[in-house]
């Protein structure tokens, strides 16, 4: 059975990860991919080249700012979080925590009120 990639309930997660990591420091694409691998302890698998269209879209949405800079004697496009991106990150992270807490609560099964016995 073929492995299903990117289940629908994970829509929006890549953006959140990118905003979170770029919120700590500006990075270029390869560096960002390595940071995602390390911080997720290699639990997230993805085609590394697929991150670039997402970075371009986040930039066109005003969440990221890019600039050409020299890194290790090579010119690269370095991305950093914009002010709008910081606000989106705060909102997104809060929503994620609320959703995951709610889902976790459902999955664990709460203490339901005992049914009324006639």
């Amino acid at each position: 059975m073929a492995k299903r990639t990117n289940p629908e309930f994970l829509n929006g997660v890549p953006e959140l990860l990118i905003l979170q990591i770029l919120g700590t420091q500006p990075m270029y694409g390869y560096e960002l991919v390595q940071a995602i691998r390390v911080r997720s302890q290699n639990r997230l698998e993805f085609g590394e080249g697929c991150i670039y269209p997402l970075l371009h879209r986040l930039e066109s949405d005003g969440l990221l700012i890019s600039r050409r800079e020299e890194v290790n004697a090579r010119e690269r496009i370095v991305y950093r979080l914009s002010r709008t991106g910081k606000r989106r990150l705060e909102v997104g992270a809060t929503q994620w925590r609320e959703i995951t807490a709610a889902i976790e609560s459902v999955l664990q099964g709460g203490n339901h009120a005992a049914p009324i016995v006639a």
Partner: protein
Amino acid sequence: MQLQSWLDDIAHSMQQESFANHTISRLTAELADHYYDLMEEQSMSSITHDEVIQRLGTKESILRAAKSQRRDSLPWLYFLTLPFIGTFICFIATTAAIMLTMAGLDYVTTLIVERLGGSAKALEHSAIVQIMVQMIWCSIPVLSTLLTCVLASRILARRDNKVVWVIVAFVIIACLSAPMQNSFSWDRRSMSSGLNISMSLAWLMDGLRIAQITLPMIALAIILRQRRQRSPVSRKALAA
């Protein structure tokens, strides 16, 4: 070269999907940089080109990712026209709103004077109100322009792109200078008023004209600078 043919393959697929050339060249340049970084990372082990490409992702997955993230197909058309159209609409809307408000105030003032039967106090009050109304009528272009600036900056301007601010400033100055040209068409050489007001206004008009000429150049310089900052690695550098 294997990398070049893989990148050409991706570029060709994206061209068939009507992606803009600058989008294609930027993506292929960044993929090339990433490829070389992976090769450096794996330089101690004998990694093959195919293994690096596998880590980057297949051509289909990259194309799928690019298609899923695509936005407007003609971003430059919208970027260049929307600020002007939007600012013009804002200016007309704010001018109409102020004129209707003033017409209403004028009407109410006239009614009040008629009701009070022309008493001295009423006439005095109505004169003050009418002077104020006249002053606001005269300053409609300035008020409309200021309101337009606020509305346009909130609705249209992307705060991270400075070019839109320059375009809005250009439109505002054009709106300001148009009524001033009609009202103050004084010959700079004639000083018949005996005051230097005509000279100051003439200099102001010259300043506005200079601003109208230089602002588009500033906008163009900002656009070119932003393009240079995002320009991809050239094919020559890729082959080096």
